[in-house]
């Protein structure tokens, strides 16, 4: 019951907020090119989607983001593994990695456009560059995080280095890798959008740019809404994967319980301790 009431209350508060904004903006006669009322933003959103314009650009932005995310995280994971496992790679390569990491990667976007042109490859490279580092660092830390006792256990069983990697280090690194993927996904979206700002033929970033030249602020707001929904959905996808992969991780269990809310957490406790049910009945 409390759940339904909260949902209703949330909807009411949201509607009140939007209506209030609409009223204030209209009453104060704020120019549309400064701050458009919510109704204009919704209209722009409707126009954009019904004409197919947003779908076309959304397709490119999504494609760039996902390809960049895949390429960047694959590369980051591989190099992170190499650094964690090989002392020479660590010693000779890591200083450059640190240097490169302190650089804001989006500052490279103009050069990337020169190198790769206005097609999607530019945006993919941009997205991959920013998605790369969270994976690299987290994979490195994760692979080195394996519990000393567990390593000793494996060694006492006469396990080979390869076995210790596959059976112990890699699974131990997964919480870190998943956290890296979480960040990399959003970073890839940022990379793609910045790339489109700098120079591209399609994509939501490029659309924001061109709307900005035309003083179409309502349109820009409508794309911001699209982008935040895209970010949310991408994040949620990673969360679903993470929950499946890391069902055993204590922090993941805590997160799931918080997401399900108090009621589910309470139920779990009762299942875990049969004694509690008696108390609850009494």
């Amino acid at each position, binding site marked *: 019951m409390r759940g339904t009431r909260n949902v209703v209350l949330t909807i009411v508060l949201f509607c009140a907020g939007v209506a209030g904004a609409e009223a204030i903006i209209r009453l104060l006669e704020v120019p549309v090119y400064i701050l458009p009322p919510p109704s204009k933003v919704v209209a722009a959103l409707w126009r954009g989607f019904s004409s197919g314009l947003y779908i076309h650009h959304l397709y490119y932005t999504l494609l760039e983001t996902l390809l960049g995310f895949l390429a960047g995280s694959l590369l980051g994971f591989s190099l992170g593994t190499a650094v964690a496992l090989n002392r020479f790679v660590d010693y000779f390569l890591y200083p450059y990695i640190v240097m490169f990491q302190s650089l804001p990667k989006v500052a490279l976007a103009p050069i990337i456009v020169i190198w790769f042109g206005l097609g999607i490859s530019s945006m993919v490279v941009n997205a991959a560059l920013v998605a790369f580092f969270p994976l690299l660092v987290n994979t490195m830390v994760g692979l080195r995080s394996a519990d000393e*006792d567990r390593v*000793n256990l494996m*060694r*006492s*069983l006469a396990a080979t280095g390869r076995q210790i990697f596959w*059976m*112990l280090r890699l699974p131990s690194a997964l919480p870190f890798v998943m956290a890296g993927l979480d960040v990399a996904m959003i970073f890839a979206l940022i990379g793609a959008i910045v790339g489109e700002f700098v120079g591209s033929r399609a994509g939501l970033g490029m659309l924001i740019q061109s709307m900005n030249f035309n003083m179409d602020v309502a349109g820009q707001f409508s794309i911001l809404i699209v982008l935040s929904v895209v970010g949310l959905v991408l994040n949620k996808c990673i969360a679903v994967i993470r929950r499946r992969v890391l069902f*055993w*991780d204590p922090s993941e269990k805590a997160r799931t319980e918080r997401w399900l809310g108090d009621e589910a957490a309470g139920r779990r406790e009762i299942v875990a301790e049969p004694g509690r049910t008696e108390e609850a009945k009494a």
Partner: protein
Amino acid sequence: MTAEAISVRGLSKYYPTRDGRITALQDISFAVSEGEFVAVVGPSGCGKSTLLKLLAGLMPPSSGEAVLGGTLITGPRRDIGVVFQSPVLFPWRTVLDNVLLPVDVQGLDRQRHVQAALNLLALVGLKEFERRYPWELSGGMQQRVAISRALIHGPALLLMDEPFGALDAMTREHMNLELQRILLEERKTVLFITHSIPEAVFLADRVLVMSARPGRILDDVRMKMARPRSLDIMSGPAFGECVRDIRAQFHAKGGFDG
């Protein structure tokens, strides 16, 4: 006297530090017969764990040698089962898969060992827990899984490094009883490291008493109480005397630093 399972001769271990070297173990010699339960008791920092790591082949000795089943210990080997102070289970593996870890690592036939693992889990009192995950079990239950895992590949020697040290006193007593019961079924040579004198006296056929750093063997006491021993013997006079004798060794020979 039956055949010697372990024979340790003049074993020493030094650790280099910034201001000279620390002697963790100094000239340790002892032998353990096949099927014998030997407890090593000593204050913390006496090199008990170093001794266990040397025997497990996890590090090389500075001097001396240890022979297990007729061959020199030069590195980790497959005929040893180790139980550590913490259960050291892999949370992504089910209880059954945790028990089967040595089977996977040593490339043994998994199919054939599944039944053996289930039998072991039944033996340690974890029947029908095989599909659970370690984090669904209590500390005592997790340590039972660790014991099953140490036994699955049929090792000749079981090394136990304060296996019940992290458990509460009640659970610990219970686990002592359980371990005795398990070992009556699965005859093994056991080297059991602990800092609890009563635990050592209760479980062992022989107790090796060690001094504080540098770790040396102060005494080798044979326990004559019949098996199976019940917890009641812990309040009997013979038991009390054994515990008192060993404790007196520490005080007389400066076993404690503080």
